[in-house]
Structure formats: structure tokens, C-alpha cells
């Protein structure tokens, strides 16, 4: 039996405490009065406006702003009607790319000229609205930061659960030695998922109108026919009911799979009934999972941009989920093996996990690209705005994430021998985990805080908070049962597994 070391326990508690302090700080400093926001904006203008002075007063910012996020448009509908023509042109152009071509540059300056004349009219009125809008974004930042981190760690547990079910359904022979590790990780699913939903709903009820999900705001919905049309799905009651179904289903499977797994430990020789039960519920769970995972990704992520949708979004989130989960399984396994607690695990097991990390990273890239290319190619304004926002306001995290999630794993894990070197796998794993955190960051933040993003105290403390909680729950769960599922019918195959 494994006992959680005091050092690890203290470490995770320190993480939680630091996280809580940082998150609290984030919340306390996020509420700015309108005047504070205005003076902040003025400062920013003088700071970066100095360079390209007279020609365009503050249009550059406004333009970015419009193509920005969907709810922006709602708030500004009335005053912005005149610009809407130029807005679409702009988003289409910017959508065509990341590097600037001459044609596009020309277009841009045209738009700017037209724009500045219009802004002069509405200036006073617009300034207020703009400041008000920025105020909202600032207030949403700690909520969003908390949500991104909470979702990221929940997703690891959920991915591990799916990976675990796949092992059973496929009757895999290599992995039974790792089952207890996977079961430990999935213990975080229930608390983690409840926290995610609590933050989502909490940002509406507790955070007043600082909700992460703009469709929860009645005032916005009132003026938005598109969201009204989707209200049958996007409403708080439905959101909660679906969340209960998702979380209930996943936890039910987790509960029984764990129960059968432990019951199998004490079964007599030749008695595989518990394994067979596990096999059956795993197959059923996988069917349930692939539907609910997809719907969960619409609910918990995609609906932050309620006007935008992508049909392969569920798969895309799944790829992130499974690659992060496999990475964490590999890391926990190596940690426990390093302590001499998993003596039977050999480097072929690590090799296999690293192969999955490599393979799923490529799979993630494939899905990311499939989504990106179709939208880029068709260049439909209401779709392409999603990527325009990310490329203009989130350039570094957007392309940085591609490097971390694709280029790094591709180069680090391509060589067969490197997949067996523990520290190499750990390094690649750290890059992958950060990359996928940023992936989730890029999914949520543009819709909530727009260009007011930064990875600062609220974001880092949220990561610390949930990392601490995750470590604490996972390693406590690992102490609850022997680390080897000794009567699994495939355990001997797993012990002798070699590549």
C-alpha cells in the first residue's frame, strides 16, 4: 500500500493556500470604477498612441475591438450600426492571415480613414461605452482565470477515465499495471467537474453580470436574436440539468469500475466475473462518454462565444483531454516508480505511454488544423471572427500553443529511444501540459476578457490552486488500494510486457 508522503501533502496544501491567496487578490483588484478604467485607458493611449500620432487617434483599438468578440457587438449595436460595413471587411481581411500582405495593408488604412470620421461623431458617447465594456472585461478576468484552470484539471481526470475505459473495452494486455494510477487520477473527476459547473454558474449568480457565459445574461439575450434562437439549449436550467447528467454518468461509471477493480483483487483463481462486468460497463460508458464529452464541450466551452460554432469542436477538446491525461498518467507512474512503488513497471510501459503522447499530439494538431483551415478557407465573417480575434489579440499564445503542442512533441518524442528516457518524457510532458493549458486559455479568454488578457497573478494562482487540489485528491486516492491490480486476468501479460 502506498502512503502519501508528508512532503507531498504539505506541498499540495501550500499550493492550495498560495492559490487561494492569489485568487482572492485577483478578485479584490478586478473591480474598478468607471473613472479608474477611463484614466487607465487614457494612460494606455498616451503610452502607445505617441508613436503613430495624428493620423488615427484611437481607431486602431476600436477596430480590433469590433471584430473582437460577439457580445461586444451586442452592447454596441445601436451606436455601431454605421460601422458594421467596415467591420465585416476588416474581419475578412485580417482573417486572410497572420503575416501581412500588401493588399491587406491598403485595405486596412482605408477602413481606418472611414472609421475615424465616424468615431468623431459618436466619440463622447462611445468613450463611456468603451470604458464600461473594458470595466466588464476586467471584472471577468479572475472568474475566467479560475474557470480555465478548473476545466484544465477536470479535463485531465476525464481524459484518464476515458483512457481507462478504453483499456478495459479493448482488453489491453500491456496496461493493467497502470490501472491503479489511472483510478487515482480519475478520483479528481467528481469534485473537479462540480467545481467547473459551480464556477460557470457562480460567475452569473455571485459575480453579478460578470458571467463567463454571456448567454446567461438576460440583458444581452434581450437584444440578441441569435441567442434567443438558441435559448432552447442555452439556458441556465438546461445547463445545470445537462451538467448533472454528464457528471452523474461519468461518476457512476467511475464508481463501479473502481468497485469491480478492487473486488477483482480478492477474487479466486480463475474467477474473472468482476473483470467481465468492468468490460461491459466500460464499453457502455465509452458510448455514453463520446456523446456527453461532445455536448459538454459545447456547453462548457464553445458557448462562451454563443454566435460561433464548429462541428468538430467536441473532437478537438477530446484530443486535448486525452493527450493531457496520458501525459499525467505517465508522470504519476514515473513518480511512483521513482519511489520504488511500481517495481513491475518497465521502460516499455513508459515507451507506450510516450507513444500515446506523441500520437495524440499529432491527432490534436490534425483536428486543430481541420477546424482552422475550413474556417480560414471559407472566410465567412461570422465564423472567421473567431480566429481573427485569436490571431490579432492572442497572437503569442495562439501560435505559441501550436509550437508547444505540435512542434515540441514532434521533435522530442519522434525518436524511439527518447520515449524510454524518463526525464525526456517528463520534459516533453511539461511542455505538453502547459501547451494544453494555453489551448483552453485560448478557448475561453477571448470571449470573456478580450484583449485585456495576461497570464498574471489570477491565472497563475488559479493553476496553483487546482494543481494543489488535484495532487492532494489524486495521491490520497492512490493510498486507498494496493498499487497493483494483482488479480486482473491480464496482469501477467502486463508484467512481461516488453517492446
Amino acid at each position, binding site marked *: 500500500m502506498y502512503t502519501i508522503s508528508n512532503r507531498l501533502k504539505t506541498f499540495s496544501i501550500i499550493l492550495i493556500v498560495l492559490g487561494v491567496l492569489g485568487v482572492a487578490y485577483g478578485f479584490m483588484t478586478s473591480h474598478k470604477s468607471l473613472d479608474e478604467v477611463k484614466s487607465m485607458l487614457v494612460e494606455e493611449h498616451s503610452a502607445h498612441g505617441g508613436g503613430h500620432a495624428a493620423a488615427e487617434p484611437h481607431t486602431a483599438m476600436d477596430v480590433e475591438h469590433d471584430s473582437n468578440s460577439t457580445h461586444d457587438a451586442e452592447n454596441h449595436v445601436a451606436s455601431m450600426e454605421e460601422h458594421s460595413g467596415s467591420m465585416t471587411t476588416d474581419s475578412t481581411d485580417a482573417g486572410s492571415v497572420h*503575416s501581412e*500582405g500588401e493588399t491587406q495593408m491598403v485595405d486596412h488604412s482605408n477602413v481606418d480613414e472611414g472609421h475615424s470620421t465616424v468615431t468623431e461623431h459618436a466619440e463622447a458617447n462611445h468613450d463611456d461605452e468603451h470604458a464600461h465594456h473594458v470595466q466588464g472585461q476586467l471584472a471577468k478576468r479572475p472568474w475566467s482565470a479560475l474557470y480555465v484552470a478548473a476545466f484544465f484539471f477536470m479535463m485531465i481526470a476525464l481524459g484518464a477515465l476515458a483512457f481507462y475505459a478504453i483499456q478495459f473495452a479493448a482488453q489491453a494486455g500491456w496496461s493493467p499495471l497502470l490501472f491503479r494510477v489511472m483510478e487515482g487520477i480519475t478520483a479528481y473527476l467528481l469534485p473537479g467537474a462540480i467545481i467547473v459547473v459551480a464556477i460557470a454558474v457562480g460567475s452569473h449568480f455571485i459575480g453579478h453580470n460578470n458571467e463567463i457565459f454571456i448567454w446567461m445574461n438576460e440583458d444581452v439575450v434581450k437584444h440578441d436574436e441569435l441567442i434567443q434562437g438558441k435559448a432552447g439549449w442555452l439556458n441556465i436550467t438546461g445547463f445545470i440539468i445537462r451538467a448533472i447528467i454528464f457528471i452523474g454518468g461519468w461518476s457512476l461509471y467511475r464508481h463501479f469500475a473502481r468497485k469491480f477493480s478492487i473486488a477483482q483483487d480478492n477474487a479466486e483463481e480463475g474467477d474473472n466475473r468482476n473483470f467481465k462486468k468492468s468490460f461491459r460497463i466500460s464499453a457502455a460508458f465509452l458510448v455514453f462518454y463520446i456523446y456527453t464529452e461532445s455536448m459538454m464541450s459545447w456547453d462548457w466551452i464553445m458557448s462562451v462565444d454563443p454566435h460561433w460554432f464548429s462541428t468538430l469542436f467536441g473532437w478537438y477538446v477530446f484530443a486535448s483531454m486525452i493527450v493531457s491525461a496520458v501525459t499525467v498518467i505517465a508522470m504519476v507512474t514515473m513518480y511512483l516508480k521513482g519511489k520504488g512503488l511500481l517495481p513491475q513497471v518497465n521502460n516499455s510501459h513508459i515507451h507506450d505511454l510516450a507513444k500515446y503522447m506523441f500520437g495524440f499530439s499529432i491527432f490534436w494538431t490534425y483536428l486543430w488544423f481541420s477546424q482552422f*483551415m475550413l474556417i480560414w*478557407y471559407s*472566410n465567412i465573417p461570422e465564423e472567421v471572427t473567431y480566429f481573427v480575434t485569436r490571431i490579432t489579440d492572442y497572437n503569442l499564445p495562439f501560435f505559441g500553443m501550436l509550437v508547444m503542442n505540435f512542434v515540441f512533441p514532434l521533435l522530442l518524442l519522434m525518436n524511439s529511444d527518447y520515449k524510454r528516457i524518463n526525464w525526456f518524457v517528463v520534459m516533453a510532458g511539461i511542455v505538453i501540459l502547459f501547451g494544453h493549458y494555453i489551448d483552453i486559455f485560448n478557448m475561453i479568454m477571448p470571449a470573456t476578457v478580450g484583449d485585456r488578457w495576461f497570464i498574471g497573478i489570477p491565472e497563475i494562482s488559479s493553476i496553483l490552486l487546482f494543481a494543489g487540489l488535484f495532487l492532494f485528491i489524486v495521491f490520497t486516492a492512490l493510498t486507498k488500494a494496493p498499487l497493483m491490480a494483482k488479480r486482473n486476468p491480464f496482469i501477467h501479460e502486463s508484467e512481461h510486457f516488453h517492446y
Partner: protein
Amino acid sequence: MEESSKVIHAIYTDDDVLMAAVKKVRAERYHIEEIYTPFPVHGLDKAMGLAPTRIAITSFIYGCIGLTVAIVMMNFIMIKDWPQNIGGKPSFSYIENMPAFVPIMFELTVFFAAHLMVITFYLRSRMWPFKKAENPDTRTTDDHFLMEISAGHNVDEQFNILRDTGAVEITLIDKAH
């Protein structure tokens, strides 16, 4: 030189027995010339102590060639020779239209890597069309495994060792005749 032209053929009927035999024979420091099997036996190359394959390196090089061919080809076809308006964004620049070419770049990378790797493998294994098979015993294409060892000074002892490892048939062959 008389001695070295002689080889011993030991035949096995099970791959696990063969694997154990290979380890035993190597431990006794006899040189295994070649092993003929009806299917690829996992881990046999490591047990025989063969040098790791370099096919992966060739594969990487071929992949890079394929990628380059795709880039040059698409640049010529879609940008230079007959400039195309791609996705309503007539930029006539390769880099700006790059996402549209990624599928082709990917496919040609795979195509080149796969085909050239197979051809390389055949040539390196000295196999080409109409080549006469170098197979000492046709049963190795069905369900038997054949290990070829160079005969040493003490052939009887070698025979005994092989018999102990579970060989079902052992013969001394003079290749020079």
C-alpha cells in the same frame, strides 16, 4: 577456410523455443549467420544482437524530400504558372495561402517516405523482381524456423547444445560444394 564454409542448420517449430535457443547459442559464443522465419518474430533482432535498423533515418530524409517536392510543386502550379485566387483571398503569395497546401504537403511527405522506404528496404535486403529465393528450406515459409550457425571445430558439441535448446532437426551443410 575449409571450416568456415560449413554451417549447421537447426530447425525449430515454435518461436518462443527459437527465442530461447538464440539466447542460449549466443551465450555459448557461437555465431548465428541467419535465421529464417515464416513471420516476423518480435524481439528476435535484439536477441540476435543485430545492429539497430537505419531505415528510420532514410524515412526521415525521404519525408523531407517529399515535403520539399510538395512545396516547390504547389508553388509552381498554384502561384507561379497560373496564379490562383484561393478562398477569395487573391494574395498570390505562397506563405499566405499555405494552409490550403498543408494537406498536399502532408500527403506527399507520407507518400515519399512510405514508397521510397519500401524500395530502400527491398534493395538493402537484395530483393528485386525475378530474383531467385535464397531459402535453404521451404518449410520456413510455412511453420518452421531455421537457425543457421557457422560450424566450429567441435561440431558434435554444437549439435548437443542445439539439441538441448529444442531443435527438432539438425544438419551439417557444406556451402562450398
